């Protein structure tokens, strides 16, 4: 028996033991096997640590190979004694306890080490990782004493740890650096659904949050974020990633990249040493899931004791093991050129499915809420099957797509019975829709109007349109009376705004899910619109999404053709002071403004400022009492005034003073488009008030309020809204008018086209005839302003979003000695 060659395995984990199983299955008599394990226990199923932590399984239930297995196969298990050195010359290993053991073949299966971010306090007692039984034991001990737990890392491991700890009664906060959870497996839409599901289970999920330090006296007391927030906790779980454990291999001089480099037969740079599992690098890739390890173990055993088959790398898929949350992801979902997204959302069932197809092949899939077809998509993906024949039905899943004739979705819809429910929200059957179409409803809008089908969540819009196609054939133009917002949705701007209020939708991914957006994360036309609609609907709660803003609104300055910026400080009502002018002159000198120009909006524009200098120039202008002029925004721009009764021999009222008051009331407000105001002191109208969105012409007896003017591409003069007697009324009507426009116009509509559509009478009815309505509009405007009137320049000058203004680094090549 001692004549058999000796196979030593370092690592009693999933890959090490599986490799031994595969070898035994092919040739049980070939080797004498010794397994060294750093952990003092038998081989168990590491992925089941999550259910173990959650209390759904016991340790006995997750053991893969018990002592009988080792004994029965003549395997010597040395548990709790780590190998500390490999001597390749002498072909032997040494353990921590000093034991020396010679080998003929050596298998390194040391797995990975959890990565610990080196923030201050990372070595405090109570900071744990999530990798083995000992980690679970520490977590359970902490859970016994209750209190708060912080999990750093919102990936698969972190979320499973958070789930377990929260089932164990802890108050859990997950801190995740990226804006969406599990960003490497899930897209924004699915990540958001997951986040809200976890939040509704009582966890706190902080995305886009960066840990500054873990604080505590001798042991963890909490975590401080870079933005200053503090979260008290008695335990901190670091689940930010893993690193292949290559220490031994490196020290032994084996070829090591990110992992231990192996060939297709899992042989390292030393022919007598093999390696398998998370510690290896094959073809430039390292893996962190078990499926690839199983494939590696088969190839390893084939190569060692049978006919070499060769490992060719793996495609992986991920499932989250949190009871009641079905999340699946496979392949590549980053999209990009040539990729086509097929999206299905069902808001009522909480389902989001996205399949990414490239050149008629499935290249990725993200499923949330209904993962039943995950394996089918994964199979199509791995086999690279041509999906063109089932393309239209693909997203509905295997049962539907493989249904032969019914692979044509039109046939499937045609085959539905008359009492089949089409619109779940409003309980509308196929029969009533067909009746409506026969009765003359020949467009989607018409069907919506007479049956309410697809008028709520909109997810059945496609079905209704198919019924129209079936009933009307080529006569169904597909055209809508009111155009949808963009190609990501079948809803119009007005529908979307109404739904946001009715369903209390607060963030972009929530709108997209509830309204069945057909793209995963919208486009550059709907994102800014949604961001605006949300901020208008929920002034107190809205969270800005900077990625949904155009560059000028992100930088709070206007980009110029050479990439520099222009800076326009607010000059209330066009009035300035020597001090302000001095500060502007100083800033122009200090930051090298290449031109200072008087704008058409009665203020000064400094041109040619570099983005790096923006926070500094704003700080200087702030110090002189000036704030952002929003010359870059879909926002209140300027309030132009003329000199008025203070000086002018014709002036009837204090137009300058009124203009300044209006600008103080309205500045900072975000709008569907830019908004301009002017106040002229008499009908000579030197402030050009009759081509502004809101203009005031002062007359002896009061103020004429003019609305809907535009001096831009299509010249449009204002129309008279009404005449009021006092300054206060002029202010009140102005606020009410702005709010009506903010709440009802489509994004990117100036007041002029909006008024063309709704008509002057409508606006008069809302603002002039309905006193209570006007007062309510005005109150809502002022309420919104209490959140919006924050100078964005001051925030930036104080350091917010500093990264937008700084280079990440700089490259200076070696100086050429002696010059050229």
């Amino acid at each position: 028996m001692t004549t058999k060659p000796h196979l030593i395995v370092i690592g009693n984990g999933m890959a090490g033991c599986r490799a031994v199983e595969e070898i035994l299955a092919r040739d049980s008599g070939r080797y004498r096997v010794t397994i060294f394990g750093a952990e003092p226990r038998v081989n168990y199923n590491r992925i089941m640590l999550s259910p173990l932590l959650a209390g759904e399984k016991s340790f006995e239930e997750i053991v893969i190979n018990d002592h009988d297995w080792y004994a029965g196969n003549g395997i010597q298990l040395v548990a709790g004694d780590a190998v500390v050195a490999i001597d390749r010359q002498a072909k032997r290993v040494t353990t921590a306890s000093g034991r020396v053991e010679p080998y003929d073949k050596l298998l390194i299966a040391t797995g990975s080490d959890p990565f610990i971010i080196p923030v201050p306090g990372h070595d405090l007692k109570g900071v744990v990782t999530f990798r083995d039984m000992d980690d679970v034991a520490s977590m359970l001990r902490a859970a016994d004493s209750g209190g708060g737990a912080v999990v750093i890392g919102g990936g698969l491991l972190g979320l499973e740890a958070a789930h377990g700890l929260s089932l164990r009664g802890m108050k859990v906060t997950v801190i995740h650096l990226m804006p969406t959870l599990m960003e490497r497996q899930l897209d924004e839409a699915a990540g958001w659904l997951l986040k809200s599901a976890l939040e509704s289970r009582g966890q706190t999920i902080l995305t886009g949050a960066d840990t500054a330090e873990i604080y505590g006296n001798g042991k963890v007391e909490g975590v401080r974020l870079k933005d200053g927030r503090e979260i008290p906790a008695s335990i901190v779980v670091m689940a930010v990633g893993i690193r292949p454990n290559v220490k031994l291999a490196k020290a032994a001089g084996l070829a090591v990249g990110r992992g231990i480099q192996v060939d297709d037969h899992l042989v390292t740079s030393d022919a007598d040493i093999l390696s398998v599992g998370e510690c290896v690098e094959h073809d430039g890739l390292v893996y962190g899931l078990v499926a690839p390890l199983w494939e590696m173990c088969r190839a390893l055993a084939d190569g060692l004791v049978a006919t070499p088959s060769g490992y060719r790398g793996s495609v992986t898929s991920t499932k989250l093991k949190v009871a009641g949350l079905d999340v699946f992801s496979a392949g590549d979902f980053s999209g990009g050129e040539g990729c086509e997204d097929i999206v299905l959302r069902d808001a009522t069932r909480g389902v989001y499915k996205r399949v990414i197809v490239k050149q008629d092949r499935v290249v990725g899939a993200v499923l949330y809420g209904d993962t039943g077809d995950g394996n089918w998509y994964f199979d199509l993906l791995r086999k690279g099957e041509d999906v063109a024949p089932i393309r239209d039905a693909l997203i509905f899943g295997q049962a539907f797509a493989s249904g032969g004739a019914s692979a044509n979705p039109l046939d499937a819809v045609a085959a539905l019975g008359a009492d089949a429910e089409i619109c779940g929200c409003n309980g509308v059957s196929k029969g009533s829709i067909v009746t409506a179409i026969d009765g003359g409803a020949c467009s989607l809008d018409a069907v919506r109007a007479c049956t309410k089908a697809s008028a709520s969540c909109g997810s059945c819009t496609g079905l209704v349109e198919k019924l129209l196609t079936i009933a009307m054939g080529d006569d169904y133009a597909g055209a809508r009376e009111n155009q949808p917002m963009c190609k990501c949705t079948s809803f119009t701007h007005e529908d979307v705004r109404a739904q946001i209020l009715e369903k209390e939708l607060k963030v972009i991914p929530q709108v997209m899910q509830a309204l069945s957006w057909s793209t995963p994360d919208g486009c550059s036309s709907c994102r800014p619109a949604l961001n605006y609609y949300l901020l208008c609907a929920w002034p107190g709660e809205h969270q800005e999404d900077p990625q949904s803003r155009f560059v000028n609104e992100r930088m709070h300055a206007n980009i110029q053709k050479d990439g520099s910026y222009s800076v326009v400080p607010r000059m209330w009502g066009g009035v300035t002071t020597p001090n302000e002018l001095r500060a502007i002159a100083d800033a122009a000198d200090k930051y090298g403004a290449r031109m200072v120009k008087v704008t058409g909006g009665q203020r000064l524009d400094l041109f040619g400022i570099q983005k790096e200098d923006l926070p500094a120039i704003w700080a200087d202008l702030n110090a002189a009492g000036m704030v952002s002029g929003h010359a870059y925004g879909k926002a209140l721009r300027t309030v132009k005034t003329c000199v008025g009764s203070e000086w002018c021999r014709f002036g009837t009222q204090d137009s300058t003073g009124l203009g300044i008051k209006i600008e103080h009331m309205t500045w900072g407000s975000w709008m569907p488009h830019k908004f301009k105001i002017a106040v002229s002191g008499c009908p000579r109208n030197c402030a050009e008030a009759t081509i502004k969105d809101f203009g005031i012409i002062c007359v002896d007896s009061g103020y004429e309020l003019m609305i809907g003017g535009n001096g831009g591409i299509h010249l449009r003069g204002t129309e008279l809204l009404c005449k009021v007697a006092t300054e206060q009324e002029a202010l009140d009507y102005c606020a009410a008018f702005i709010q009506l426009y903010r709440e009802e116009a489509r994004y990117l509509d100036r007041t002029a086209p909006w008024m063309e559509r709704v008509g002057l009478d409508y606006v008069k009815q809302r603002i002039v005839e309905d006193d209570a309505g006007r007062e309510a509009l005005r109150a809502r405007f002022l309420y919104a302003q209490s959140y919006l009137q924050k100078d964005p320049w001051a925030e930036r000058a104080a350091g917010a979003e500093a990264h937008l203004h700084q280079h990440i680094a700089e490259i200076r090549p070696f100086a050429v000695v002696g010059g050229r």
Partner: protein
Amino acid sequence: MDAIWLDIGPVEQLPALGARTLPVQGGEEIAIFRTANGEVYALVNACPHKQGPLSQGIVHDTSVTCPLHNWRISLVTGEALGEDKGCVPVIPVKIDGGRILISRAEALAGTN
């Protein structure tokens, strides 16, 4: 043919769906982008149309929309997408251990 990689800092310093700039003394400024799922790309920071600073554009999928006239440029190939024609040099970058590494040769291509 071992490429020489320059370490330009931790990947967290790049905003998701955003970009930052990397000036090269004597050469052309580089824009480093980060996509929604954490991939990193680098292009010369000048649009093939009229040299718009691509680092200031909106990042979408694996493309960036130029802030000046809305050309869409692929982060992967540097090619203009859709109807537009033009190409900007791509500089190889990779992430290793949470650090961004950029290929020295291409980064310095424009210098002399």
